[in-house]
């Protein structure tokens, strides 16, 4: 009797039409481990997980749980096999209570009647949530919960169905620091109780913190399965990109630009939300990072510079003159790549072309008519310059991967030749390959004189790209660090948490 892993997916193959998406995938899970699944966009991670959760059917290969073949012909079969997916976009009904959501379609009944036993439903939910060690009232509406708590309700719902394998897809992408910590604790607790977790994330640091093993996919194949202990970020990146292709995601000292006059001056900004007194400058060609906790008001500062939000007091001066509203900001060369590309950055059901042209319409309009031929040149150049992977300019933005979608949002603004580019969380849900391309592009544009403000929760990213880093804490810029003097992510992390980092100098206060 051979020793079987808890779950064994062996030699899985899957094609869509003539295109093989999974070529030869082996994916094994041990009971009670946290197993990271990594790979660039298009590597086949989501297809593999959709096969595991019964959304897609494999073309060939075997799936065994505890050595026994399992039937995954649809999602309810996968559910019966104890496999549950915690979705990136949550599948909860915001207008129902926590308890109603957890037991939706499986509500306990008053014995012998068709009526729902509400008290029992609440009691069971409370028990479940207590086991998870979270303090959520089962009778609150899901819509009133934070994103982090909603995710926990999702997990509770999965556990209520006796799930043994949880697939978490980018679970921290919209969580605050504290919520992320809480989630990690929960993951540890689940693991201790024998639940097996497949953890999909683009965040390397996270993976190495909480995962036991990692499997890397590339081009529809599993190229590596290793213990996390002793593994470095570089090794993982190399596996994801292929040997020799590992794009450098390291910092370049671009020198100081102290002699130039600032193009952006933010003066004593006070906003209705959280921001009390924020001042800083950015010079042409500079890349300035803005670090701070989620919800610390970073996005609101970006919106204010972009003219979408009027400050209670203080002002935003661009190129010597105050910014008056969004049109003024855009006309004078400010561009914003907003936080949520699907909601604010793209018209998903429109083509790549239409999306890139949208902020550039006035340039291509003469006598009311849009000159599409001229526009198309710009679109094609943008696609080429940013190496956006698309079948063509007419492909719907919805059908592109996250990284390529983000390149469209970036490209549509770069096509205007902005003098100040604000990037709000530019690489959330973007794979490492596209990520370094985006960083590369931004650096190139900055070298040509564009000023850049980067807001990010990923310290790795801020450390890689910024010349200076502003730390937002308690509604003001608590520290201004020259990147050259920040030795490690740790140090930056401490600064953001509000501690005074050691050995830092406040650059021109």
């Amino acid at each position, binding site marked *: 009797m051979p020793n079987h892993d808890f779950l064994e997916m062996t030699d899985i193959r899957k094609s869509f039409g003539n295109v093989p998406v999974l070529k030869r995938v082996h994916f094994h899970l041990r009971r009670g481990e946290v197993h990271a699944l990594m790979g660039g966009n298009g590597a086949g991670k989501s297809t593999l997980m959709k096969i595991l959760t019964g959304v897609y059917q494999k073309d060939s290969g075997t799936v065994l749980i505890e050595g026994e073949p399992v039937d995954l012909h649809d999602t309810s079969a996968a559910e019966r096999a104890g496999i549950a997916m915690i979705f990136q976009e949550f599948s909860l009904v915001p207008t129902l209570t926590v308890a109603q959501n957890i037991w939706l379609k499986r509500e306990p009944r008053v014995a012998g009647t068709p009526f729902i036993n509400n008290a029992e439903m609440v009691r069971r939910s409370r028990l479940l949530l207590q086991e998870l060690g979270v303090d959520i009232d089962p009778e609150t509406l899901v819509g009133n919960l934070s994103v982090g708590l909603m995710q926990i309700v999702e997990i509770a719902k999965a556990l209520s169905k006796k799930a043994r394998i949880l697939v978490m897809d980018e679970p921290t992408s919209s969580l605050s620091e504290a919520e992320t910590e809480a989630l990690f604790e929960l993951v540890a607790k689940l693991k201790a109780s024998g639940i097996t977790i497949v953890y999909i994330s683009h965040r390397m640091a996270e993976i190495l913190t909480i995962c036991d093993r990692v499997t890397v996919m590339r081009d529809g194949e599993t190229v590596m399965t290793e213990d996390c202990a002793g593994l470095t970020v570089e090794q993982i990146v190399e596996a994801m990109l292929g040997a020799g292709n590992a794009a450098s995601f390291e910092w370049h000292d671009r020198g100081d630009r102290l002699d130039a006059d600032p193009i952006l001056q933010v003066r004593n900004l006070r906003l209705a939300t959280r921001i009390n007194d924020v001042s800083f400058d950015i010079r042409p060609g500079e890349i300035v990072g803005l670090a701070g906790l989620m919800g610390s008001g970073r996005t609101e500062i970006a919106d204010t510079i972009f003219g979408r939000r009027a400050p209670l007091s203080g002002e935003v001066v661009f190129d010597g003159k105050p910014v008056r509203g969004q049109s003024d900001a855009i006309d004078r060369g400010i561009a914003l790549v907003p936080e949520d590309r699907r909601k*604010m950055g793209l*018209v998903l059901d429109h083509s790549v072309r239409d999306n890139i042209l949208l902020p550039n319409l006035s340039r291509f309009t003469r006598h009311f008519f849009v000159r599409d031929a001229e526009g198309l040149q710009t679109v094609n150049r943008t696609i080429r310059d940013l190496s956006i992977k698309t079948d063509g300019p007419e492909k719907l933005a919805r059908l592109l991967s996250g990284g390529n979608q983000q390149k469209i949002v970036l490209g549509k603004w770069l096509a205007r030749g902005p003098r100040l580019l604000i990037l709000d969380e530019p690489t959330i849900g973007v794979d490492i390959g596209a990520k*370094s391309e985006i960083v590369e592009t931004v650096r190139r544009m900055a070298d040509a004189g564009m000023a850049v403000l980067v807001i990010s929760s990923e310290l790795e990213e801020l450390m890689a790209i910024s010349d200076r880093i502003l730390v937002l804490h308690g509604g003001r810029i608590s520290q201004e660090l020259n990147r050259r003097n920040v030795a490690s992510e740790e140090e930056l992390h401490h600064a953001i948490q509000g501690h005074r980092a050691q050995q830092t100098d406040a650059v021109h206060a």
Partner: protein
Amino acid sequence: MQSKATVPSRPMLSMPDIQWQNYVVYIFFIIVLAFFGFTIGDSGFLSVTNLFNIARTTAMITVIAVAMTFVISAGELDLSVGSTTALAALVCALVMQAGFPWPVAVLAAIASGLVVGVLNGFFVTVIGIPSFLVTLGMMQFIRGVDMRVTYTNPISISNQSFNGLFGSGYVFGVPSLLIWSVVIAVLGHVVLKYTGFGREILATGGNRQAAEYSGVKTRRVKFYAFLLSGAAAALAGMLYSGMMQTARFNFGEGAELMAIAAVILGGTSLFGGKGTILGTFAGSLLIGTINNGLIIMGLDVSEQMMISGAIIIVAVAFGKKPGAA
């Protein structure tokens, strides 16, 4: 380094690349024409007179539906267009009755439609009430105004220049109503497809927030859409009164629903972001052809309504993309 860094993107769901859903209105149009051609072709259905007749009776709906395409593509709805047609017709007739020359009456009628458009636009974009509710109330309110101004009495229009231009006349043997609907459809097509305003309409309806962030003034765009809709309804009212040589408070009853049906049949998304005027034109003709054919077949009004209603549902069902909720 750049191009090597990413793996080739995999195709999304293997959705077959058939785009026939986009052409469903044309397919249905051909099927319906063929059906009536075979069954009642020799009862005069295929005669030039009757085909012109179809074009004439659909002109009002076409004109309204063209503007409605803009409103719906911008993610809104305008239910007040039916009552506005009667309002404009009455204003026009009253101004002429008062002795003003017909061009003044035409301008007054257009102005009345614009006033309704301004009100709708104001409540939707400034106050922020959903357009369904605003225009539902407006539909009722304006219909009340229509009834009140003449105490439901019809006003006849004797100015033959007006009647000829707007409804009853012919140019080189082609009914002026047909010319009006073609001109409006072509204008609408060009504006929606080839101007910045058209792109902004579609972007606003496709994702308002993203359009805002891209610098589109979405409230202004929606406001203009309601103006267009009001003006088009006014024109439709004049076409109607020119054809009937009279103005009556109940003109355009149900026209808003016919127009919406034409727009949706034509492939425009009810949720905005995707719209085509050619489809709308075909959708309007399809509805007109069905109604005309059923009349020639000798069906009762009740039967006509049941059949045309059923055809609309079936056609929209066929036009639905698989998997779309």
